[in-house]
């Protein structure tokens, strides 16, 4: 079996891929193999592994997803077509992947040209080893799912903006998992370079067609920010019943600004790793997120911010609302290295449990080796504040409606912090949808 289940099966999938891909350069093959082998050298981690303590990969392993398929890109049925069209953000530049394969018709290829677009295959065949070194070694690339992605990814994109290029239309990257039985795990690799003085906003959505079938998306999205670059990255995972793993990596040069938001509103099991590294002074990273979970969903965010140099700022707020028997994990590391004086780093996670059976494992971690920094971290897990509830009730608002308002307010508190107006309104709509469903199924138990 060429599946993600055992080390042997991964090896087998790799061998199968090696024989079925034609015309690949030796360098490209070796680049892929090197990362894959290093990622799987210790096997598939269990919960005994520190980084996987609260998230078991067993449900994903049990599904025995195919890692490799040489099938042509899936034919689009009208349902997928309609779904994609309903999800596209208005007035954006589109990049649409169906089961990991770029769909040219639904993407805006002409406009993409102005963003320095090339397919992953083009990038692999044209760029040299030293150019690739950056992308292969950026932070987080040593992770298991980054390696699996790099090894087996069939399609992806490189976007290389020009110096001082200000892009006003957002880039909307949409990934669809169709759940077709013969589809392999859907992997996409995106390399996004926002050089000196350039500006770009990226929306990346992971959606799925039906809730009943299974599916796995394994994303890899890498950013390189030049001096004074300004990049917003807003990702939304709404794939109820599906598996999702992701690696997000960003390297920040002098005076650059990276605003990210990770919204999870539907996923059977999600593990999202975000790694940010400051390589020069005066840069800023805003790292926010919101997970809304119900049923037996499991959402795990692992973030690492590495302050290697001084005079940079990190603001991180992750919030979660958990209903039913769902679980969430937040593990946030911030390293402030010895030379990173005058760093400012603030990290907070707040979680609202709507059910006795929901569980959050929050682990904020701040490691400071410099002596002149401002830093704080905190974690809160609780239920609805009875005083807030009473306040609303004493203003005529019924208990159920008051609960819904407070939950929504708890979520909006982080969404409203977004600096980008369109991001605020787009993410707000996703949150509304989740709450609408929550209300229609009769709300959550307390």
């Amino acid at each position, binding site marked *: 079996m060429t599946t993600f289940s055992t080390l042997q099966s991964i090896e087998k999938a790799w061998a199968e891929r090696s024989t079925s891909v034609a015309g690949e350069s030796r360098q490209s093959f070796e680049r892929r193999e090197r990362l894959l082998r290093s990622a799987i050298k210790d096997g598939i981690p269990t919960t005994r592994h520190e980084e996987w303590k609260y998230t078991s990969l067993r449900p994903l392993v049990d599904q025995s997803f195919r890692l490799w398929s040489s099938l042509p890109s899936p034919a689009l049925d009208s349902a997928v077509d309609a779904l994609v069209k309903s999800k596209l953000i208005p007035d954006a530049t589109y990049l649409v992947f169906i089961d990991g394969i770029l769909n040219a018709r639904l993407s805006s290829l002409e406009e993409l040209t102005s963003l320095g677009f090339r397919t992953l295959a083009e990038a692999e065949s044209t760029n040299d080893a030293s150019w690739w070194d950056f992308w292969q070694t950026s932070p987080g690339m040593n992770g298991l799912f980054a390696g699996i992605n790099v090894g087996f990814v069939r399609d992806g994109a490189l976007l290389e903006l020009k110096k001082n290029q200000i892009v006003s239309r957002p880039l909307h990257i949409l990934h669809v998992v169709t759940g077709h039985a013969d589809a392999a795990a859907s992997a996409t690799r995106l390399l996004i370079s926002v050089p000196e003085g350039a500006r770009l906003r990226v929306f990346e959505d992971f959606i799925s067609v039906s809730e009943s079938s299974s599916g796995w998306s394994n994303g890899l999205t890498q950013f390189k920010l030049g001096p004074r670059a300004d990049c917003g990255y807003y990702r939304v995972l709404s794939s109820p019943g599906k598996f999702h793993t992701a690696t997000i990596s960003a390297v920040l040069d002098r005076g650059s600004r990276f605003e990210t938001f990770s919204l999870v509103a539907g996923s059977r099991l999600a593990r999202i790793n975000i790694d940010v590294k400051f390589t020069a002074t005066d840069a800023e990273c805003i790292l926010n997120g919101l997970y809304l979970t119900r049923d037996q969903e499991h959402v795990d965010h692992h973030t690492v911010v590495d302050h290697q140099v001084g005079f940079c700022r990190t603001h991180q707020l992750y919030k979660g609302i958990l209903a039913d028997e769902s679980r969430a994990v937040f593990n946030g590391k911030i390293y402030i290295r010895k030379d990173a004086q005058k760093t400012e780093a603030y990290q907070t996670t707040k979680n609202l449990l709507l059910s006795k059976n929901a569980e959050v494992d929050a682990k904020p971690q701040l490691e400071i080796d410099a002596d002149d920094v401002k830093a704080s971290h905190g974690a809160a897990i609780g239920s609805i504040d009875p005083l807030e509830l*009473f306040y609303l009730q004493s*203003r*005529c608002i019924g208990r159920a409606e008051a609960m819904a308002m407070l939950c929504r*307010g*708890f*979520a*909006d508190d982080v969404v*409203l912090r977004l600096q980008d107006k369109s991001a605020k309104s787009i993410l707000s709509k996703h949150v509304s949808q989740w709450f609408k469903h929550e209300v229609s199924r009769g709300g959550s138990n307390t």
Partner: protein
Amino acid sequence: MAMLAINDLHASVDGKEILKGLSLSVNEGEVHAIMGPNGSGKSTLSKVLAGHPDYEVTSGRVEFEVNLRMRNVLDMAPEERARNGIFLAYQYPVEIPGVPNSAFLRAAFNAVCKHQGAKEVSEEAFAPILKEKCKLLGMDERFIDREVNVAFSGGEKKRNEILQMAIIQPRLAFLDETDSGLDVDSLRIVSEGVNKLRRQDNAVVLVTHYQRILNYIVPDYVHVLYQGRIIKSGKKDLALEIEEKGYDWLLKDFVN
């Protein structure tokens, strides 16, 4: 018929009895002031009336006139009390991050509409209503876009309470130390707001430490609360006497 009738009310918090047989009767159109030293039970009375979850009524009756019938308030959920016309202006208004003031006020307004069998209003239809109330109270409209009480100054929080009162239009307003922490200008603005909302058929109970607010909102009756009971009632002159002589002369008589 009285609008509010409290009879021999006993209430406790954390197992400690605070109200020890309080009785009070309020009629339509009246303004009452409840004064008393710290710890006498003033705030407890307000909270018990509104149905605060931390306070337990151990005995006594609280009745409120609804459609010409006296109804047992203690059986009602907090929102039912509010919908039937009992309003508490908080001493310490609660901050609710993430909830816009406008959405909060509209939810309150619509809850009242629904209760009274009227149609609920849309966001668009509510905006001019809110605008008019802000104008009536001399309040900055920027208030309504902010999150409920978040990063409000003390004076702003108190004014927001009165704005809520203007939206809900209660029949009985309990103002719990609305004057505390207000400077002279804020006190005047808040008091004028309350006065503008007064009608023949509603009543106001001011719970206060000081006589100061009574210069603006003139009471018909003044009660002194001490050790969980009303130990003296009088007309507005009583407040002036307390201002002049303090509470000691009253308490001395009471203690023995």
